[in-house]
């Protein structure tokens, strides 16, 4: 298994994809935190915006949660990590070297969990590096402890788990474009609809997007699972997707 993880790392870092996705994740997270703090005055002048006032605990947590905006990049990273084997037809040499295809899927789950964790740390270090000095300069210093720290750790954990879930999605769908588009439509269209319909709203917290939110949420939100429950359920989603992918898609003929 160590060999296969090393092989997956070599695959990932021998093309430029990781760099673009990491830059994108850092840029989006850093920018969302910067915009929130930079425009805090305007938000305060318009109470209907829902942004808590500068200096409150809620505002500090919202600023520190910038990294949670980047988790979708890790989902895409995991999806591409799995589906590019089919897109570029490298599944043939990969499964020739490792005929037990389940081991390949497992090694990708572990690799993308680890790489997403590492990248999520980088992203959140940037968010913290933007937020802490700037908030101090604004006269609203915050400490990276307690609930604030939990928010940052949640964004890191959520990112890592989404990388693994991406591998599961990719294993099931195999087609790269279908997997990415399908995952994004599910997260940004289907789940919000389910959440807004009263009959299904209470189920939202158990869905992949809802479990992610429970991990990355600030104290603003309420009807969600506890962080550890969300993390366990999201891990289970990744595993179930990967096992389903292995059974229904990855084991199929490579022709």
């Amino acid at each position, binding site marked *: 298994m160590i*060999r296969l993880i090393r092989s997956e790392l*070599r695959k990932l870092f021998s*093309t430029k994809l990781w760099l673009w996705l990491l830059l994108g994740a850092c840029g989006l997270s850093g920018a969302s935190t910067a915009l929130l703090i930079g425009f805090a005055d305007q938000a305060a002048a318009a109470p209907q915006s829902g942004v808590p006032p500068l200096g409150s605990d809620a505002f500090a947590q919202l600023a520190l949660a910038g990294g949670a905006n980047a988790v979708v990049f890790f989902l895409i990273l995991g999806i591409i990590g799995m589906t590019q084997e089919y897109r570029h037809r490298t599944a043939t040499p990969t*499964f*020739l070297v490792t*005929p037990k295809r389940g081991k390949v899927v497992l090694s990708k789950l572990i690799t993308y969990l680890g790489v997403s964790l590492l990248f999520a740390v980088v992203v959140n270090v940037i968010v913290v590096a933007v937020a802490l000095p700037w908030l101090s300069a604004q006269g609203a210093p915050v400490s990276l402890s307690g609930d604030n720290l939990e928010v940052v750790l949640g964004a890191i954990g959520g990112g890592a788990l989404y990388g693994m879930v991406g591998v599961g999605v990719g294993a099931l769908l195999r087609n790269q474009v279908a997997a990415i588009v399908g995952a994004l439509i599910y997260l940004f269209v289907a789940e919000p609809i389910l959440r807004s319909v009263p009959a299904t709203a209470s189920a939202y917290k158990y869905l992949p997007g809802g479990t992610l939110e429970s991990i990355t949420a600030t104290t603003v939100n309420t009807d969600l699972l506890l962080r550890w429950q969300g993390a366990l359920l999201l891990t289970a989603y990744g595993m179930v997707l990967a096992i389903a992918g292995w059974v229904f898609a990855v084991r199929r003929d490579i022709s």
Partner: protein
Amino acid sequence: MSLPTTDNPESAAPARVVVTELSKRFGVVQAVDRLSFVVEPGQVTGFLGPNGAGKTTTLRMALGLITPDSGSTTYGGIAYSALPQPSLRVGAVLETAFHPGRNGRNHLRVYCAAAGLPEERADAVLAQVGMTDAGRRKTGGYSLGMRQRLGLATALLGDPQVLILDEPANGLDPEGIQWLRNFLQHLAHDQGRTILVSSHLLSEVQQTVDRIVIIAGGKLVREGTIAELADPARASVHLRSPNAASLREALVGAGAQVETLSAEELTVRGMPIAAIGHLAFTTGVELHELRTATTDLEEIYFRLTAGQEEFKATPLPEATVAEVSS
């Protein structure tokens, strides 16, 4: 050719490849139909058949990428998926596709890592296929010939005893084909490896291989050594003579099968060329031409490929011909 190799204990033992009763159906098409053949060590075996004959499906089944409906393939008695370290026993090239953004050397290092081989093997096999410089470039810019070489390098990583190559000459220039021929013969004849090479072109493999397995419609058509199948003594003979009719009588009387092509031309089968020349001499018939036409092998293969409906050319309508010629 002295090459850096791994200390590969697996590759020491010569391995026969035994294909037994393989079958695979895709929908209504019986792609491979109870196909059996053996690939012996120390020889280059050609796996020949027209396009769509089932060659690639057979090779993919043999390597565990496609699950056969029935039948099996073994390497030294073991199925591919049961080999403890398949890359050290069997190297295969089925695909000339690579991630376009990865360079050739890194492509090889990916599989070094997966197979537990030292990374130096990547450089060794690049040198072996003459790609040392190109290995630093992204595969997206490779020509088909370079892709073939990188594919071959991938197969050679584990220094395997068995090599299985699907259409390896595709896209190679004449010099590349010559190189591949010498390379494969060296691996088989001098190093005793077992080599199976598929092709849809007889001319491509005829001078490379020692044995040949011909399939069509997923079934075995003929299997044998080139020496047997392409024996000039058993080839048909083409002759031209102003006295073709009387020579024909003499030939038929001597037991040959004769086909009359024109008033002056005959094709003779079942009699060696020297015997035909002698018969013409003793019967006092003047000869203007006497040559070997096609070998047994060529005839078999032409018959197979001629029957392929999908490649039948339709004659141009006369109007079009007139326009073109005017």
